[in-house]
């Protein structure tokens, strides 16, 4: 039924489909080491402990400059995410003052339905406090960044469903700082050495290398609570950045776990259904020369 020519043609078309490197951009993007994430692959799920640690990093460090305007406190209690208890989330929300023009004095205590409060009232305030640079909102940031694979490696991504480019980039970025401009820094077009503008920091993975954000994480900066009987998590930049990248992926894709679980069922059904359909088709066509 499927002769060699058909198969070859299918391969050609698949190759054509794969020839859609929409995420293709060159300019010698530095190689980013792919990490092993619990949420990668068909059976990927978030590691609840990791998300809770990542939330701690976000809350204690990132959220002093970065907003997450699409996240509500209630999301933190949802299944498939950090899954704090409802009491924890209520207590957490109540720690924040929420601007509310209908409340006495213009602010009130937060409730679970409130959005995560932004650190700055306006974009201009955010820029003023950060040397003119705007700290991007975290809500979907993990999906707004990616990793550029060289040809032909990106073709495989369509078959493996690689969707962790954002967390990989974030992890690399947080570990890509140099105290001084390194030897590996690219030279300017006229051959003069790379010069870091005032108030910027050198990062291997940031586009243009001069990033406005100071290295946000240091070893030992955040102390994770260790539950009884569990191994202590290393208090390193590498670990912090993995945890916060995972947390950011959850913020960007809070329904990932249920999506993949549904998807497995759907695919299983479709494969079985296709088999039955094929059998039925064969039966109907039996005895017909075609």
């Amino acid at each position, binding site marked *: 039924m*499927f002769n060699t020519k*058909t198969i070859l043609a299918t391969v*050609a*078309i698949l*190759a*054509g*489909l794969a*020839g*859609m*490197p*929409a*995420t*293709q*951009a*060159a*300019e010698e993007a530095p190689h980013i080491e792919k990490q092993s994430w619990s949420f990668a692959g*068909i059976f990927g799920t978030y590691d609840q402990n990791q998300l809770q640690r990542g939330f701690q990093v976000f809350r204690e460090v990132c959220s002093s400059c970065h907003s997450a*305007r*699409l996240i509500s406190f209630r*999301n933190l209690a949802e299944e498939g995410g950090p899954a704090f208890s409802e009491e924890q989330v209520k207590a957490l929300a109540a720690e924040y003052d929420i601007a509310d023009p209908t409340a006495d004095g213009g602010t009130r205590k937060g409730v679970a339905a409130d959005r995560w409060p932004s650190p700055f009232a306006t974009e201009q305030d955010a820029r003023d406090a950060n040397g003119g640079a705007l700290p*991007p909102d975290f*809500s*979907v*940031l993990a*999906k*707004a*960044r*990616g990793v550029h694979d060289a040809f032909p490696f990106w073709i495989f*991504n*369509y078959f493996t*469903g*690689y*969707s962790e*480019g*954002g967390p990989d980039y974030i992890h690399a970025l947080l570990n890509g700082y140099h105290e001084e401009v390194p030897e590996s820094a690219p030279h300017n077009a006229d051959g003069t050495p790379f010069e870091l503008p005032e108030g910027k920091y050198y990062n291997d993975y940031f*586009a243009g290398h001069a990033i406005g954000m100071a290295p946000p994480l240091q070893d030992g900066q955040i102390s994770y609570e260790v539950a009884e009987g569990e191994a202590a998590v290393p208090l390193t930049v590498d670990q912090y950045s993995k945890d916060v990248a995972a947390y950011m992926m959850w913020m*960007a894709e*809070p*329904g990932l776990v249920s*999506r*993949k679980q*549904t*998807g*497995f069922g*759907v*695919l299983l059904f*479709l*494969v079985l*259904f*296709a088999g039955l*359909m*094929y059998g*039925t*088709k064969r039966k*109907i*066509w039996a005895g*017909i*020369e*075609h």
Partner: protein
Amino acid sequence: MSEHSTYTPGSGIEKWLDERLPIIRFSKEHLMDFPTPKNLNYWWTFGAILVMCLLVQIVTGVILAMHYTPNIGMAFDSVEHIRRDVNGGRIIQATHAVGASMFFAAVYIHIFRGMYFGSYKAPREILWILGVLIFLLMMATAFMGYVLPWGQMSGWAATVITNIFAAIPVIGTPLLELLRGGFSVGNPTLNRFFSLHYLLPFVIAAVVALHIWALHVPGNNNPTGVSVKDSRDTLPFHPYYTMKDLFGMVLFMIPFAWFIFFAPDILGHPDNYIQFDSQVTPAHIVPEWYFLPFYAILRAIDFNLLFIDSKLLGVIFFGGSILILFLLPWLDTSKVRSGNFRPMFRWFYWLFVINFVALTYLGAQPADGIYVLLSKICTAYYFIHFIVILPVLGRIETPRPLPTSISESVLSKSHA
């Protein structure tokens, strides 16, 4: 096509209805009894797959429109609202976004199938022309749909693509302002694109109806390209092709579901998760993959010709690369339809396919260095295929002997 009608109204009500609106008779003739060549291969199931794609896009799109807000301040967040807070929204939105890609994948297969088996040749020229028209409408619809989430690629695609029209002499600038609803891409642009994005699928559905009508007058082409001679060559559409098409559809849903559930964003661009900012240009503005071949052609033209400047010339080539498809039935001079019986055409056909894939690849590359030269070569070959190769091949090629009928070819195959 009442000549193959076997319908006799079974009951009084059916008889009453048949004399007033013969819808049951019509359905039976066209959806069940319609004589279809018995040798259609699986490439022919893509017609039905495309109908499914259109329906999926319309159903998911209508639901999305219930929750989407076409305002530049709210559009981006409203799409996220659909993904986060609307029941089933995550899957519906992903189905619609992935669905656009799957729709184009299927339409490219359908078009290339038609090209290989000569399905555009007499008496199917109108059928082909309507198909090209559907393809054009799909491109317009997909482009405007891509603008609606109001990400960086949305806004910049709108900017770049509307700018193309500005190159047209005399009416260019007024046309640009009409498309954008102002001097730059903004809220009026988003609103009119939303309105048109909702309208065009129904126009597509109407042209699809004409396309199927034009199919049902001469009937299907088939892999031999030999016309149907008598009833031994055909099978009733139902149950043979309803079943085969349904199987094809289910098979097609497998990669479709793979993308929806396991990599819903892989066919898009990460930059579209950044809200549109007209002050910040992305490092590379890349269209969706299905536009890349034509985008490569647009960018390949970076030189002036006589009094025509490069911008206008690019637009002429860009438009010409699609419009030339309308002329295909008359550019191909060979009387033999199927590529299976055209030894020289086959080679050039696959060269054309490879060239098209190469254009797709080049459309995603930065417009500098070797890529510009390669784009020019591939663009030139694209047009040479239609303007030189196809007309000449028909004159110099000696086709292999054709089977006298479909049933003869089927029998010889099964005994070989």
